[in-house]
């Protein structure tokens, strides 16, 4: 415990006050004819992925919202219990679709820790590179979604276009667009291909150009400001109550970033400062993500400049067919684009994990927090509000 001195002014850290629960609302009498039940989702273009929000509306105002998930449940945590450690590796990335690499990293990190393996230095640099690339992808998707939810479709076109360029880099590096399966327990599958740096630099420049356009069209747009400022505010005192992490917490002024608070991989060797804002509304959240994206661009440049080009990529693993890991439990976390992503892994000395629990940031954001924020908003804002929390349902229900 030495790092905490570096943490900025303690005023921003929340005092341990009693948690304010959502105010008790009078029971809603649906048969009074005053209210209307409205389902947003699962078949609804304004919903992020396959989930649904059950709204009770009174006029244009929403009085109650309930999140329903489970449409994407595949039972990963159960499936992993009947797969050996190396067999789990190809399925973990499928837990979260838009940013799959964090699953691979957290799983690999947890298994390495329990098995007492250390990934080689070069592999750690490549892992960091992949995670930052994935973060950019995820943010680009978010920006398109946030603009699209407010009817500004053209931003989605632009960001998806540059996201495709980034997917090309992924393809070059890992061979796949979406599910990369690159971060193995023990290291990574391969090094960088020849000429990767140059093409990456081109992609980053294109991203920066597009972001300048997005900045102009979206963040300096009077209508966008009008729709997002002061809407969907997460009060700072509710951050801990609802387990808010990542950009959502940073937009409320809490400099909470796992990359700096509990550095993993090679983050201690990179220089960056968590991006924060104070307003905690929809606009602040999108702005934090935009600046975070640009910070990731900078981080990738740092990584490519500093990373070692020679060295091992894989630690020596035991025979993976008979790989047994002694009894133990651990929790490995990382800062993904939506907040704290973590794997809680328990082993029991056999060749299979005893239990693996995925802690996705959307789990708290989309369930309890969204239900808390929805009452009192306008129907038109619900979709945008949900996007602004940046939730991906597959990681909620796994």
């Amino acid at each position, binding site marked *: *415990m030495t*790092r*905490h001195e570096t*943490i900025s002014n*303690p005023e921003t*850290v*929340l005092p*341990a006050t009693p*948690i304010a*629960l*959502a105010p008790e609302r009078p029971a809603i009498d649906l048969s009074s004819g005053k209210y209307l039940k409205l389902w947003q989702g699962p078949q609804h273009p304004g919903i992020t992925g396959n989930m649904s929000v059950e709204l009770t509306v009174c006029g244009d105002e929403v009085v109650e919202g309930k999140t329903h*998930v*489970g449409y994407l*449940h595949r*039972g990963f*945590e*159960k*499936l992993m*219990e*009947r797969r*050996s450690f190396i*067999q789990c590796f190809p399925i973990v990335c499928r837990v979260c679709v838009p940013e799959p690499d964090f699953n691979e990293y957290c799983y690999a990190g947890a298994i390495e*820790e329990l098995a007492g393996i250390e990934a080689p230095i070069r592999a750690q640099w490549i892992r960091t590179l992949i995670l930052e690339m994935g973060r950019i992808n995820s943010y680009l998707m978010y920006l398109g979604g946030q603009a699209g939810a407010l009817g500004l479709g053209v931003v989605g076109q632009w960001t998806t276009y540059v996201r495709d360029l980034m997917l090309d880099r992924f393809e070059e590096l890992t061979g796949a667009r979406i599910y990369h399966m690159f971060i193995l327990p023990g290291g990574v599958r391969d090094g960088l291909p020849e000429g990767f740096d140059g093409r990456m630099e081109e992609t980053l420049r294109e991203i920066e150009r597009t972001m300048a356009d997005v900045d102009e069209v979206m963040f300096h747009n009077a209508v966008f400001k009008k729709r997002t400022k002061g809407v969907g505010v997460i009060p700072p005192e509710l951050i*801990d*109550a*609802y*387990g808010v*992490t990542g950009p959502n917490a940073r937009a409320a002024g*809490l400099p*909470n970033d796992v990359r700096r*608070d*509990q550095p993993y991989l090679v983050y201690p060797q990179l220089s960056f400062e968590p991006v924060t804002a104070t307003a905690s509304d929809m606009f602040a959240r999108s702005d934090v993500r935009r600046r975070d994206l640009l910070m990731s661009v900078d981080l990738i440049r740092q990584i490519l400049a500093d990373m070692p080009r020679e060295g091992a990529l894989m630690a020596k693993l035991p025979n993976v*067919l*008979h790989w047994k890991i002694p009894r*133990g*439990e*651990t*929790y490995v*976390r990382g800062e993904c684009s939506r907040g*704290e992503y*973590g794997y*809680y892994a*328990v082993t029991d000395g056999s060749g299979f994990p*005893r*239990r693996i*629990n995925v*802690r996705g940031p959307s*789990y*708290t954001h989309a*369930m*309890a*927090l969204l239900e*808390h924020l929805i009452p009192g908003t306008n129907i038109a804002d619900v979709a945008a509000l949900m996007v602004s929390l940046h939730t991906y349902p597959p990681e909620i*229900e796994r």
Partner: protein
Amino acid sequence: MRTLLENLKERFPLGPITEQRPDLVFVTVERSGLRPLLAHLRDREGFTHLVLLTAVDWIEENLFQLTYLVHDRRRGRDIGLRVLVPRDAAEMETIHDLWPTAATYQRELREMFGIGFPGSPRVDEEFILEGWVDLPPYRRDFDTKAFAEEAFAHRPGRETHDPATHMRERLTAQGRAK
């Protein structure tokens, strides 16, 4: 972390302690001692962030292990509290008044493990599954493969290999000769 644990030991009865990493400790506590300890950690020691609440099924010992992982944002450290509850009378005190978000975790545990949390809001509502009629699926005695084979229509022609035998047959000389 050491001083913190010393402090805690003086005030609360703590069970076995595992120091997993310098910033991550797992502590076993009694079922009744959990709530005061969590409240103390939250209000006095700065562990304000409930990272996760989950369960592990130790079916051999007929126990569920509930893990409450709390995080101190300021100092970047975590404590995992393990609580063991018997499998056949699986019930635990709710902590949704300490962290409202815990209600979601408790709903999931209720559904996936069948652990009861009396008093937790909407705990008995369906969360992920719909129209589930079998054992809670995350319990170890629920066999997902058998269930899937029985419940769903399968397309014939799918082959499943045991990796160890498959590799042996493919890679070794006598395997290839066969």
